[in-house]
């Protein structure tokens, strides 16, 4: 799960779709097998003005507040940023990213820099929802599974439903921006003497 989370972080946080940008190759120069790479789309409507939603997401340092397993993001200027996420087996995974395209209140598009442990690109697009119902945010992500241990985690995760993972983070983003807090039942009272197997992951496994 940690591996999964890490990838998702990376994803939602900082990709920009190569195809969207007309790019077909990784920064390393390797061809991006974009039919083979993992691609995901997700969308959410947030009952807040577009400027506010954009401003929150554009401030990458905010993202660990709403994204599970993302430990930190540091902006280094000139559109570059350094990302640290929880990785498998208690290690962290980090990468650098750069913004490829940005239009205020409309679009953020990015990709990871050469040498990153996580190769990805993605975009976030912002529109006014009809009828004054807030802001529509659409994410498109493309991800090339890395090799090695991290890669195995990542691949397993993306074999399942990457879009569900983005939806889960979008849900938290929405909660945070609409209500100022993220609904939680962690650490509340119960009558368990020892930790029980959580039922939801098992159910989701069964439904997958």
């Amino acid at each position, binding site marked *: 799960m940690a591996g999964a989370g890490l990838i998702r972080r990376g994803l939602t946080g900082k990709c920009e779709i190569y195809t969207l940008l007309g790019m077909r190759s990784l920064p390393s120069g390797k061809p991006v097998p974009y039919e083979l790479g993992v691609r995901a789309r997700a969308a959410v409507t947030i009952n807040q003005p577009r400027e506010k939603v954009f401003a929150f997401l554009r401030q990458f340092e905010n993202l660990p507040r709403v994204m599970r397993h993302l430990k930190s993001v540091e902006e280094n200027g000139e559109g570059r940023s350094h990302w640290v996420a929880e990785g498998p087996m208690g290690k962290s995974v980090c990468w650098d990213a750069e913004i490829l395209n940005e239009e205020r209140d409309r679009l953020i598009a990015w990709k990871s820099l050469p040498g990153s442990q996580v190769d990805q690109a993605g975009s976030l697009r912002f529109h006014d929802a009809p009828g004054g119902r807030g802001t529509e945010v659409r994410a498109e992500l493309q991800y090339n599974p890395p090799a090695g241990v991290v890669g195995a985690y990542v691949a397993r995760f993306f074999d399942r439903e990457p879009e569900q993972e983005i939806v889960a983070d979008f849900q938290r983003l929405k909660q945070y921006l*609409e209500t100022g807090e993220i*609904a939680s039942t962690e*650490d*509340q009272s119960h*009558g368990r003497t020892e930790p*029980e197997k959580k039922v939801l992951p098992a159910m989701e496994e069964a439904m997958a």
Partner: protein
Amino acid sequence: MRAVCWYGKGDVRVETVPDPSILNPRDAIVRVTLTAICGSDLHIYNGHIPGMERGDILGHEFMGEVVEVGAQVRNLKRGDRVVVPFTICCGKCYFCQSQQWSLCDNTNPNAPALHKLYGASGAGLFGYSHLYGGYAGGQSQFVRVPFAGVAPIVVDNDLTDEQVLFLSDILPTGFMAADNCNIHAGDVVAVWGCGPVGQFAIRSAYLLGAEKVIAIDDVPERLRLARERSGAITINCATTDVMAELNDLTAGRGPDSCIDAVGMEAHGYGLAYAYDRTKQALMMETDRPGVLRQAIAACRKGGTLSIPGVYGGFIDNVPIGSAFAKGLTLRMGQTHVPRYLPTLMRRIREHEIDPTFIISHRTRLEDAPEAYKVFNQDKGACTKVVMKPS
């Protein structure tokens, strides 16, 4: 504190568990003064609700005194006496702001799981499985109430706990069931199920202008309550042909609206029932839709079917063709509790409704395991249990 915990089908126990604490800035902690067992709790008790974990604290009908508030709680303070709706509402999303409170976007931390199951998630609910958020329930001495300034309603001291407790769920549920029927003068409303929800639906249908309400159940004591306290004409479905009787009572028109206040555990008779029971036991069909089928078949052309009874999954052999041919309107869902609180509070105060008549058992929280058993098995003697934490 002491709390009613669930450990499996038919297995609830009162255990000592840690006291709740404020986890989010809009939380409050409420000291529970009165709580009840709901028909919906029986679906959990009987093992029909997925996503429960051993040790979960039950209960979504409760009220009490605010003993602690988080930093961001407005319009609620220590010492306030509150009834807490079973739906947790954020107050800021599109659904809360359009009075569709039980569809709140933001209060279910496990929304993605429910999304996977149903394609969308509504509000988080107290004590009603991890699919609905895994919130600890209010059959306990203390309870954490998230977004405490939004849905809970402060009550004055001239009303007793018993008079207002059912504002948390079943009274608004019965009222919304009738409200969903779009009742006009002269209308005949048929109500399946004479449990608490059915009783309040009958009363509400009259308040909203129904000419005649027909109540259907197979428990003689509950039918008597429906006649004597709620003013319904009754049909015992164990001994009477319901369709023929409804046809006769409406002179061939069929009821203008039908309310299914039974839900997924409908009793039934004959082959179709055996089929549903078997499928439910084999987990092929999750719900037993006997009442739903009958209500669709009975409802008049252009009529409304209102479904407060809970369904959780899949059902077979629902006569959708009949519903289509007759141009029926179907309305359903978890109750938008806060929408109805002001009007119901006023109606209680003005003695238009006295919700206490359904209470048959008053016990201590400590006696919860016995109370669950009785409420589940002896529908005749037991219509509603309220429990006092000591």
